[in-house]
């Protein structure tokens, strides 16, 4: 009897917990265990969540606005950044390109800030991408960067 209990108790507990999570997922759309949580557009970029980035923009989220970003780009810190700045912070050119392809605007006004930020964050691929399209700013001194 004790041996039976020893063999079966942990598996049954886990099966019960996971089945509850699975039923909730099937009925409500999200499981109890490791469910998706709401994130801002810039948080999605910071987490390399390109699917969520495209979902939010296709639902009307502005790819050129500024969003709060908690504990993703900076550990345990709130930062307010644009999607393009968040992409620079990840140093991933494909994310930068994703935002641009979905309406993120790189203009003569924001390009110097992005270039200075890319240099600061050592986002070399993105810096090269920007250098091909915009002249390098003379100096980054006094330019307001996300951090």
């Amino acid at each position, binding site marked *: 009897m004790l041996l039976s209990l020893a063999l*079966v108790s942990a598996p049954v507990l886990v*099966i019960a917990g*996971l*089945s509850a999570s699975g039923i909730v997922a099937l009925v409500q759309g*999200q499981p109890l265990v490791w469910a998706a*949580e709401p994130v801002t557009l810039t948080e999605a970029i910071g987490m390399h969540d390109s*699917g969520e980035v495209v*979902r939010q923009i296709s639902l009307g989220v502005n790819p050129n606005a500024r969003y709060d970003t908690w504990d993703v780009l900076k550990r345990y810190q709130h930062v307010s950044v644009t999607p393009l700045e968040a992409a620079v912070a990840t140093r991933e050119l494909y994310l930068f390109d994703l935002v641009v392809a979905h309406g993120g605007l790189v203009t003569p006004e924001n390009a110097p800030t992005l270039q200075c930020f890319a240099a600061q964050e050592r986002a070399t691929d993105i810096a090269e991408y920007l250098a091909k399209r915009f002249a390098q700013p003379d100096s980054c001194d006094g330019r307001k960067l996300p951090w």
Partner: protein
Amino acid sequence: MLKGPVIAAWMLGALTALGLAGSIYRTPIQVSDSLEVIERVSGLPSLGAAFVDGLHNSPVMLRPLKQVETKLLVEAGEALGNRYHLVFRGYHAAAGAALIALFLLVCRVRTWTDVAALGFGLAVLTGMQTFVGLFREAFPLNHFLLVALAVLATYALAQTRGGRLVDLAAAAIFAVAALTFETGLLVWPVAVTGYVAGLRGISKRGIALMTIVLIAYGTARVTYLQYRSIGVGQRTTGFGTGTLSPQDQVTRFGEDPTPFYAYNAAMSATSVLVSQPTVGQWTVVNAWRQGRLPPVYVVQIGSSLLTSALIAWFMIGRGASGSRRWRDPISLVFLVLLVANAIMSYSYAKEEVVSAAGVLYAVMACVAARALLAHRPPVWLAGPIIAVALAVSSAWAIRSIGLHLKLRHGAFDARSQWASVFYPTNPASWPAEGHTRQIVERMREEALMQRTIAPAMLPRWTEQWWGED
């Protein structure tokens, strides 16, 4: 009338299937290895055309029924109002439930002791590293899962009282499995070994029928269709504590691939028994050398070693008839399948390829646990056995939670892939044909709207307990 233990066993199976279905259904249809097939069959006029196309679209892979099955699901999705996620992911979840149901049938639960052994067996089944590959990806149908289903179904048929219908069903299952994926050929040794070991559900006539299918398959493959076998350098694979790129493999083993093939086969079998190496690579040795051994290695290797020891104890023991239990049908079928499945992994190591052997390993764990529960050890040994049983079953329970974590990772990856489909700045990559384009657009929409957790949001300790993705 169903008895209490049987009802309890099916309830346990149903709960396991529901938990699994919840995670599978949250995983979007993939792009890589899937969309190409979906686009291909969408443009074909009929199921027959999909079959014929599947005969000729690769020089090494003969999988025409995979295309037929994919076309069937695409058409079912259309018929249900373009609900492709429902059909493709629902099918995958239902196939998972069918696997659990067959597992229950093969384990043959009759008493409360059997239920306890089944609980342990289900934890082993869903905790096996080879099990993850049956659900994490779909291509767009997971052919490894279909083979595992076919193997279990064949064994379940062999356990029946038999008859003409059973023979026909066994031959049909074999044909479908073989024409869906190459490892489907494993169904034949399962049936033959079962017969040799004394199971008569599939009769001599049924075995002959299956052998005719096998000969027809081999003849068509080699002579009419002129398929080549897979050689050295197919994909990156582990070797020792490192990995070999396709080019490395050709350089080192191009002249004489035998040692490389032998390594892959031996390590594939070993991975089923001890959870290492991982894809041919002894990652545990690397972790040890780096001075850090995360709990995932202790849990996985420890539970596998002890469970394999339990299975070995069972096999060398004697059954009620007095003969060694390795001669029992399930033991012999497991041993033969393990070897045959490993041999089919000769070209490269991949956990999914040995998933059929992994499923039977779990059946063996259930059967061996049942024997352990029936065993009466000396009183002084009872305490340690209970403690070890608790530790091992807890370890497998932890491993089975990891399945769902890996499915979350898979869901994230699958959804992310859709971000590059219909890429606004690359319209040249969009499907040109209108009907196919509609299907892909709808699949993309369904996938992107399905929110998944990003791995970056998962607690860091999950990596310690279940490994990196």
